[in-house]
């Protein structure tokens, strides 16, 4: 958020009302400006088209890679090692463009690359990470299955030992970037608990089928992954990690990005609604002069600024290694919920214009329905927090 025009009059900025900008370092602001400029130049002019035709250009990977945004918070192997706050700011600006674009970067950096970085062997890391950081190779992350979403522990995909090889069978569902990935991180049951595998997309027995007819996150590829007697060498398995701890560590990273990203989408909706309310006239006055419109805008302003402060707070905690996964649940639950409310409220202010792709609002609103569901549904995060404060698990 930039506080520019109104610094002069002394009034707080109508968007960055709390001057959260002043809490950022010069370097953090530069990262934010870089991604914001990129989104303004390259994403916003095209994204309505991508959304309408239900695609995302594969080349986006190379562009984001060139800017250094893929796996930006990882260290080594060609990754820049940025702070959690810088990563969050990038997510915020990308999602102010479109949740699909942010998802693209999240899946690549926080799910696929993070999984390899955190759990991979030295060989896996040097094989994949430098190319993935450049966007030359894309990754996806296969945890969810048709019958196991919120309850991944029940997954049926199974990795069977055959000599020193592994043979994988099963189906993964709703996998972002599945159809365009060069490597799929696949989680599977084994006699030894849940294990993770790097599956190159060309492997025999591996297929990705695109899921069509989505009305949300349309500027994003979502696929089904089918593994039928997919044979992998021992070297394809993550050597150490066993159990749900493996995928959950990755989800925690991606969820963290959503705390910021959702506020980016919310900001785009609020800015659009505010601009519209100040120019659209009905009954001889701007609709922004009506009390009901003002109340809507003010409620949006409050939640946008509170949510952004929350994101920054959790980001600072993360940089100090004090952020617990429950903090991340807190942020994801609150910020996605509020972003969706802001989007819906903004939609009403735009009237009929609010239902077209001429304005970004309904696109964000529809996208946020996916964001509410993936990376742990809002219900699941509610129950995680419920257990955290009562000590009673209501969901298992």
């Amino acid at each position, binding site marked *: 958020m*930039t506080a*520019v*025009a109104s*610094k*002069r009059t002394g009034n707080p900025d109508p968007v960055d009302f709390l001057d959260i900008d002043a809490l950022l370092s*010069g*370097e953090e*602001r*530069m*990262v934010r*400006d*870089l991604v914001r*400029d*990129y989104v303004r130049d390259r994403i916003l002019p095209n994204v309505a088209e991508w959304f309408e035709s239900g695609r995302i250009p594969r080349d986006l990977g190379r562009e984001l890679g*060139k*800017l*250094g*945004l893929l796996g*930006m918070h990882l260290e080594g192997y060609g990754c*820049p*090692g*940025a702070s959690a706050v*810088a990563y969050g700011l990038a997510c915020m600006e990308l999602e102010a463009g479109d949740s699909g674009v942010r998802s693209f970067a999240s899946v690549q950096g926080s799910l696929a690359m993070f999984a390899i970085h955190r759990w991979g062997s030295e060989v896996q890391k040097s094989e994949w990470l430098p190319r993935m950081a450049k966007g030359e190779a894309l990754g996806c992350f296969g945890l969810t299955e048709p019958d196991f979403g919120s309850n991944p522990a029940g997954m049926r995909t199974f990795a069977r030992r055959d000599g020193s090889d592994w043979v994988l069978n099963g189906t993964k569902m709703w996998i972002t970037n599945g159809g365009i990935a060069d490597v799929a991180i696949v989680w599977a049951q084994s006699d030894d608990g849940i294990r993770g595998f790097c599956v190159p997309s060309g492997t025999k027995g591996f297929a990705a089928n695109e899921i069509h007819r989505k009305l949300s996150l349309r500027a994003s590829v979502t696929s089904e992954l089918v593994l039928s007697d997919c044979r992998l060498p021992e070297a394809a398995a993550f050597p150490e990690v066993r159990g749900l701890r493996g995928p959950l560590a990755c989800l925690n990273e991606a969820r963290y990005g959503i705390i910021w990203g959702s506020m980016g989408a919310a900001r785009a909706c609020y800015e659009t609604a505010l601009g519209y309310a100040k120019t659209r006239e009905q009954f001889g006055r701007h609709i922004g002069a009506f009390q009901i419109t003002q109340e809507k805008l003010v409620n949006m302003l409050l939640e946008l600024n509170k949510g952004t402060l929350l994101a920054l707070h959790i980001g600072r905690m993360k940089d100090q290694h004090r952020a617990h996964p429950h903090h991340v649940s807190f942020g994801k639950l609150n910020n996605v919920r509020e972003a969706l409310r802001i989007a819906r409220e903004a939609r009403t202010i735009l009237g009929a214009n609010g239902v077209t792709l001429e304005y970004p609002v309904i696109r964000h609103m529809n996208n946020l329905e996916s964001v509410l569901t993936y990376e742990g549904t809002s219900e699941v995060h509610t129950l995680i927090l419920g257990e955290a404060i009562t000590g009673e698990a209501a969901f298992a």
Partner: protein
Amino acid sequence: MTVKLVPDVNAEKRIDPATRRLVRTGVDTVLNPYDEYAIEAALQLKEKLGEGTTVTVFSMAPESGKETVRKALAMGADDAVMLTDAGLEGSDVWDTAFALAQGLKKHGFDLVICGSLSDDGSTGGVPGAIAEYLGVPGFTNARHLDVADGRLRVQRETDNGYQTVSGPLPALVSVTMAVGEPRYASLKGIMGAKKKTIAVQTPADAGIAQPLGASGAKTELLEFAPPPARSKARVVTAEDGPSGAAAIFEFLKEKKLA
């Protein structure tokens, strides 16, 4: 290459009636957008000439502008020099050019690359004046530049084409937007920029003896006024039929375009 720090180009500009100077307080500063093309041209040249070429950002600006200068470093420049002193505030074209020329001489250079205009002052006079004070050939409005065998070759934009001119180094060029879109910084560039040096030069360091800034200015701003409001555009639609076509033709004739 030289860069100027200017108020955010989207911010509303205001002139202080007392000093007749642009109010710069309370407005974010950005790199003069025209100078981003100079940075781009410098980086392209460095990529071509390879190792051993140093791109230094040279800026006359208050020390508070460091963060903005760092953006040029994030784009890929090697280091920066800021000529800084309260006494330089309010410098006009001549004083600015003189001070920059002194600073550049002190620092040493083979080629000075400038933007062709500043977004705030918009005189376009500084590059030529720097070349004059430096006593080096000045090539203004370049759309393309190249260095080979110690000589500079430049395509200068004209109203209806371009001229190719060449001259010896050291020299000065001012570039137009045709040199290529300024590149984005990268995350690595941003993170690396904090390790690059921004040296501070005072007028004394640059060997400037006489008073500059508002007190030394050769020009005085007598009057200022906001631009007149634009008159309403004439709208011709398909419904106007043949009379609309005639109206468009008359308009073009009036503008000597038909």
